């Protein structure tokens, strides 16, 4: 098996594994990054969302072959020097979580949205997050948190 080289949370990473394996399980088991959750493994719930070159993807559907030479950011890579990312900070402030299981994926989708649309409308936030399911029903707080984070990041 060839080595797969990629950038993980800003650092070089090398994994030697079957290139057809999903990124999700390599993150969670081989690399010990359990912040990325598995809610369905079918790309239908969004709990496993990570950023691939800054764009949100479902890590259950991305193979290791697909990350070769690219940049992967997981929930563990968002905070810098112990300081929460503005989206994380906003989720705390607006209490945009309950059980917290969908939260990492939700935050990664939101960060991905703000990367390409710094000043999203409410409709754009809803559309961007509609593939991230939340069973606790914290949706409105998530929308508020994303709006607030956008403001703090200078998007408004």
């Amino acid at each position: 098996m060839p080595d797969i080289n990629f950038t993980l949370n800003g650092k070089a990473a090398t994994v030697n594994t079957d290139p057809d394996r999903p990124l999700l399980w390599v993150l969670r088991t081989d690399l010990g990054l359990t912040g990325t959750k598995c809610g369905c493994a079918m790309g239908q719930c969004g709990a496993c969302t990570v950023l691939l070159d800054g764009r949100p993807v479902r890590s259950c559907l991305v193979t290791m072959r697909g990350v070769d030479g690219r940049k992967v950011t997981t929930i563990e890579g968002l905070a810098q020097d112990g300081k929460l990312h503005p989206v994380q900070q906003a989720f705390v402030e607006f209490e945009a979580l309950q059980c917290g299981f969908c939260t990492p994926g939700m935050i990664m989708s939101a960060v991905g949205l703000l990367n390409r649309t710094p000043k999203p409308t409410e409709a754009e936030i809803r559309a961007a997050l509609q593939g991230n399911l939340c069973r606790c029903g914290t949706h409105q707080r998530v929308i508020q948190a994303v709006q607030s984070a956008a403001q703090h990041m200078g998007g408004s």
Partner: protein
Amino acid sequence: MARRVRTGLTRREPSSPTAIRRRQFLAAVGGGILVSVVATKAVGQEATTPAAAAPAFNAHLRVGADGRVTCFVGKIEMGQGIITSLPMVMAEELEVPLSSVDVVAGDTALCPYDAGTWGSLSIQQYANGLRTAAAQAKAVLKQMGAEQLGVPVADVSVADGAVFATADPNRRVTYAELTKGQQILRQVTGSAPVDPVSAYTIVGKPTPRTDAVAKVTGQAKYAGDMRLPGMLYASILRPPSLGATRQSLDTSAAEAVPGVTVVNTGGLVAALHEQPDVAAKAIGLVKATWKENSLAVDDKAIFDYYERSLGSLRQVTGVGSVTTAAQQAETTIENRFLGGYLAHAPMEPHTALADYRDGQITVWASTQNPFGVRDEVAAAVGLPASKVRIITPFVGGGFGGKSSNGQAIEAARLSKAVGKPVMVAWSREEELTLDHYRPAAVHIVRSGLKAGKVIFFDMGIYGVGDRGTDLFYSFPNYRVRTADDRGVPLPTGPWRGPGNNANTFARECQMDIMAAKLGADPVQFRLDHLSNNARMRAVLEAAAKQFGWQTARFPSGRGYGVALGSDAGTYVATIMEVKVDGATGKVQVLRVVCAQDMGLVVNPQGAITQMEGCTNMGLGYSFSEELRFQGTKVLDRSFATYRIPTFMDVPPKIETVLVNSRSTPAHGGGEPAIVTVGAAAANAIFDATGARLYQLPMTPERVLAAIEKARQEGPAPGLTGDVNADGKVTTADAMLAVQLALGLRTGTEAQLRAADTDGSGKVEVGDALRILRAAVGGG
């Protein structure tokens, strides 16, 4: 020398060898003051102690040598926020900062027995009970502090985690100094005085949840995040339908996958590998043939099936005589309401890591009842309960679904079979097909009116039981009869607010149907039947005020719906505004107001979040969720067809009102606000369209069918818009309305009211247009 005080440390735990557990516990917690609360009727029997309202709670409370306070409870944290609210209660009573209180939840080796985290009971039982425990600990600390300071106990006070001489606050000793090197055990007697509610400074203050940072950084650990050296992940062979029996098995292809171990233990066939994705692939290579059970019922026929198969209705509640009253009624209305099976669909599927070694087993499980799991695991692997430890990390949503724990049993059996730690994490398909579902529901509701009031109300309930049917309206004659679900064809169990969702749907729809019959305003009609219930009245009035409810005859075309419910001792009112797309049947929720009286609110912020969560989750059973099945085969096997609410389905905002009643003991907050959502939505759809839906979920197809039916039947009597009071809405009414709007004619009061279709208080051209549309059948 350590002083040891032991006063009757007993635990009411039938299956637990007390001595072993106490040793484990003391070894684990070290020194300090330990107060043990156990469930006895003796606790707080005096009506003046709040514990009187808490019949069953257990907790250990420890003031450690470092001065930190730790609460050990058998409850678990699944998002509902007890990890924040229970420490608030303790911090309040012990007079320490909230930041110095820790919780150990759901660890069977450290926490006293608890039946399970369900029924919105955590705060009901513990908030009140823990106050007594904390008060007891404080009494011990005061006594010790007084001795240390050399003053009578009557002359000391406590604040900020220290005991001080009331006359000279500089003479103080901290809890940490007092408890250092001590090991003091106390059992709560209920005699220590608790702080009066009026003196609270922490309880009742909106407090952010303490687990938020861990959850936004990915550091919060769930069962699936646990890692042990040498652990294996299991994928389990499942039958194609419930109860199917295996006829043949060929595991050779799976066994040929490098690193895969196939286990076949007592009918449980699993592929194990150190990578979960490889285990999943391997189980797909197992060949098996099955004999399936055939059962001629599906999600459409289930309602007739229930009525045929569940036996006759048995009375569970009776007030007055509905049969006598039925003969006096001027109008009798009978309806049949339906609702399908519901799946829990938490975002975290059932997961457990089991480690069987040296004659003991430890299981990290996503569960709502760790002590139940302990006993089940003990039985499954043949160990006494004392050799089984269940640890509950953060649980990724439960909603009742994690009160069944098949995954933990499977992990335990497999770990025993291979002698290694084994993780079982159900796939989404397993989560949807191995669930215990909220039963389907059939309600036969008969009610009668006399002189504008309900003189009898009679509910026959098939499937979902009688939760939430306690009578809060002033019906003089009331009866509830039930025939309960028997787990056929699908296994059933608790689901957030259990049957109350369906029961409230049936009752509150019937209320609106009666109000419409009388041409009455639905809020006023309800208030007219709440003369004996000040709490519910206040809740409804609060909701109506927040919503800006204006009296109108219904259906008004505005799309407003109201529903009331009671659950876990809490009263709730929901008012909803919807828009119905007459072409597609799609319902859009524009606005929701939810008011709730849950007694003393420990953490208003957490309570509000739960109310919002209940409302959003409730939109699922209202509009999209119903488990489809054919015989014993569940057809909904992914989120693609079992549709839970998404960001596209929820209203922009949920406005919540907590009706404060600090003098009432704390009641449940995790479920009440979900029970009213379906009825409020159905009533809003009726108000928008004049079409009545009798079945949940109210899918676009069903909404369209109801609109079509309403169109064929013509306007209901008393329909707004019938300006000339001839019993129907015609173009003649529209013409009259135009004349009234333009001031070309002076109408009678009744005509003005009938023409004022939007309840604005005056007749405008828009009213006339609305009447015209109704008259020509344009919705």
